[in-house]
């Protein structure tokens, strides 16, 4: 598909209550600068049901235009309805770039939409820039479990698309809205939606762990050595009113549930304080937590890569350090 404009679009995913999910809103911040460099407008695309709040949030993030598709069939999310709606808009208006937050739904919709548009999509980016030579977007993403970074261009087809990991960019300071709001009447026939939400499941085997919203996270890795070691992690987390996280190694060993996993195949977090205990810090883990405001690493191996992203580190045995730290925290917070 040919681009009809130089506009950069950001897909704004909405919640059931019609407000915006953070992932999309955050992308309007880097989107602003990229749109200016591409000499196009920054357009927020809001889809959902009763999305007034999401439109307001997008307007405060300096969008030039907000395209809105509002209808009961867009809540809850379905692949069929969202891909049809996005395809309709892109075909009609022809943006040059489309950014989508790499949430579960964003990564469900993105590839299907890219395929329908016969264009390229770069998944789960951690950096977006403009390629100096071509003027195309340079999408940078981790591969090989985060051991390698790759910068990818999509030069010959439009729109160039990327999903971007939530939490990588922060929301900008709110501005006085100036966006032109354009409502699009596009409806999807019920018969075209081929999946059906039967029910939401309360997961009985795994507790709900709200890592994304946590202010303090204490995480354990291979060095924790077993479920018993996680008791020490939990004790410190409790003392700090924090949440327990874990590396993939600890989860794969069955020491703690997957809901606790931080990193590439787990959650991306950005708390005020992240304490990594016995985590070597493979980049797939670091990619999930390096946005934390303060990172503390406790590890026996002074060469562990986790120290490369830590603000404070103790080279030592966590079985020795953690009980002391818990005790000190309890004293300081008493």
């Amino acid at each position, binding site marked *: 598909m040919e681009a009809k404009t130089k506009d950069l679009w950001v897909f704004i995913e909405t919640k059931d209550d019609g407000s915006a999910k953070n992932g999309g809103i955050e992308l309007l911040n880097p989107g602003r600068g990229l749109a200016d460099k591409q000499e196009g407008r920054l357009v927020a695309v809001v889809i959902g049901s009763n999305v007034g709040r999401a439109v307001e949030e997008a307007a405060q993030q300096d969008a030039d235009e907000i395209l809105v598709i509002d209808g009961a069939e867009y809540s809850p999310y379905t692949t069929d309805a969202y891909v049809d709606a996005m395809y309709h808009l892109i075909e009609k208006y022809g943006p040059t770039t489309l950014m989508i937050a790499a949430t579960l739904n964003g990564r469900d919709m993105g590839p299907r939409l890219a395929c329908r548009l016969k264009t390229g999509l770069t998944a789960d980016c951690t950096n977006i820039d403009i390629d100096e030579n071509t003027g195309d977007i340079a999408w940078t993403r981790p591969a090989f*479990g985060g051991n390698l970074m790759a910068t990818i261009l999509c030069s010959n087809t439009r729109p160039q698309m990327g999903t971007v990991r939530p939490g990588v960019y922060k929301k900008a300071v709110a501005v006085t809205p100036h966006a032109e709001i354009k409502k699009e009447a596009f409806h999807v026939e019920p018969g075209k939606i081929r999946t059906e939400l039967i029910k939401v499941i309360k997961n009985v085997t795994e507790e709900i762990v709200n890592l994304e919203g946590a202010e303090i996270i204490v995480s354990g890795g291979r060095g924790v050595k077993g479920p018993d070691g996680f008791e020490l992690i939990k004790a410190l987390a409790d003392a700090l009113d924090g949440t327990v996280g874990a590396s993939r190694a600890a989860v794969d060993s069955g020491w703690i549930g997957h809901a606790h996993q931080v990193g590439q195949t787990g959650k991306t977090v950005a708390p005020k304080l992240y304490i990594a205990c016995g985590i070597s810090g493979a980049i797939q883990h670091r990619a999930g937590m390096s946005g934390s405001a303060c990172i503390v690493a406790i590890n026996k191996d002074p060469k562990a890569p986790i120290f490369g992203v830590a603000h404070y580190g103790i080279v030592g045995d966590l079985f020795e350090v953690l009980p002391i730290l818990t005790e000190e925290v309890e004293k300081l917070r008493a």
Partner: protein
Amino acid sequence: MNILVCVKQVPDTTEIKIDPVKNTLIRDGVPAIVNTFDAYALEAAARIKDKNPNTHIVVVSMGPQNAINALKECLAIAADKAYLVSGRKFGGSDTLATSYILENAMRKIEELEGCKFDAVFCGKQAIDGDTAQVGPELAEHLGYPQITCALECEEKDGRFEVIKEGEELNMLIGIQAPCVITFTKPGFDPRYPSIKRKMAANRAEVPILDESAFPDIDLTRIGLSGSPTAVKKTFVPQQMQDGMIIDEGTARTSTVKLAQILSDKKVI
């Protein structure tokens, strides 16, 4: 019930190390494995077959000749038949081109097996590329509905009921057949192959589908030149160097110091 399971042979990314001098990936000696998430997809198919023994499970992989090893492992675990899609013109394909080739492969395999697949199961992503794109792109090429990040799947009255992982709560979703479902890590481990199945798998013939198997494929849509995305550069990520190691002599004194710093900085 006929199920096609797409698998990829990948390097075990947990075994990949960085050469500290050259700052490059050391790929030599890294074991090749069946992509972890694809093993969950195969297990989901095997569980459907446990309940309905008439289920026919076919595995397909696109990759180099030695990906036959991954396919034989799948045969040993649960698959009834395996096909390898391998050809020089397929090399360098990005996800859009790969999913287009797989669409063609699926149609060819349906013809060869004389059956229609009710579902295509994939892992949600491969652990080397981590794109999570081939499954949904294949669904789009086929025009089938899709569910991504499934944990469990049951066949019910000619359709499927799938437990899908959500960001907070999981969902039970019904989907029409034929469909594409991608699987994430469930709460159980995939089964191991029996000795008997392993021996049979070693002897099994795995047909190879190369370019000649797809006379109608559009060559401008496959391989490096048929891929809309191109890798401009790769690099090993840099570390930041402004961290502070606290060493006050003993574990106790260092830890006390750490707690004091965090308290002074109002982090705790």
